[in-house]
């Protein structure tokens, strides 16, 4: 798998040499911030997996990404403790980092739940006006062949 943080895609190479392009991890994480229950544990797993795989050779972009997107209180505390100088600039966009800097995992857990709740609500608001339109299309739908 090859990717650069900041690129919008990752290229995956299969054992047989075939390659395909995948949405970049930061974009995928954003796309998963929906109102669906199943997406939130997935976001947590995605960022944890990234942290686990890249922590030994982390770039500044990696650290920023983890501070913005980690949903695991203990890991957020660990990243903030290891890179406290990266937090102040990100606190305006993610206020819960102040709890990470203090090492307050219980407070972080509460704030992460609030953050998730706000994202779910934003997603609901986004889809609300589109729902009627999609319903209308659904009624008009006919099974058609491509081409």
């Amino acid at each position, binding site marked *: 798998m090859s990717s650069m943080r900041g690129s919008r895609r990752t290229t995956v190479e299969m054992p047989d040499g075939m390659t395909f392009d995948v949405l970049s991890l930061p974009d995928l994480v954003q796309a998963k911030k929906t109102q669906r229950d199943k997406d939130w544990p997935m976001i947590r797993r995605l960022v944890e997996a990234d942290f686990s795989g890249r922590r030994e050779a982390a770039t500044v972009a990696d650290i920023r990404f983890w501070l913005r997107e980690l949903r695991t209180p203990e890991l957020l505390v660990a990243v903030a403790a290891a890179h406290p100088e990266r937090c102040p600039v990100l606190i305006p966009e993610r206020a819960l980092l102040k709890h990470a800097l203090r090492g307050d995992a219980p407070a972080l857990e509460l704030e992460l739940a609030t953050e998730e709740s706000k994202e779910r609500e934003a997603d609901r608001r986004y889809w609300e006006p589109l729902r009627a339109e999609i319903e209308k299309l*659904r009624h008009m739908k006919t099974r058609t062949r491509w081409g």
Partner: protein
Amino acid sequence: MRAHRVRALLMGGQACISYGAADFSRDVDLAIVSSLQNIHALRKAMASLQAEVIAVPPLNVNYLRKATRSISAVTIRQRKACASI
């Protein structure tokens, strides 16, 4: 898709698997560049797979443009409305 030079990025559950996060996924979600040329290529690719449209909205460049102008210009909210095939 590759044979027909469709410009698309894998997203959704299959993309999560490729990033090492286990998931159960029965479909393939793609973010598709919404140009006429690309839609034409996609139609050919789907036709070669004998695929059928089973969900709304229809694969029409106007609907895709409403969702996303291009991969490079895609925004968080827009991406959620990308076509799922």
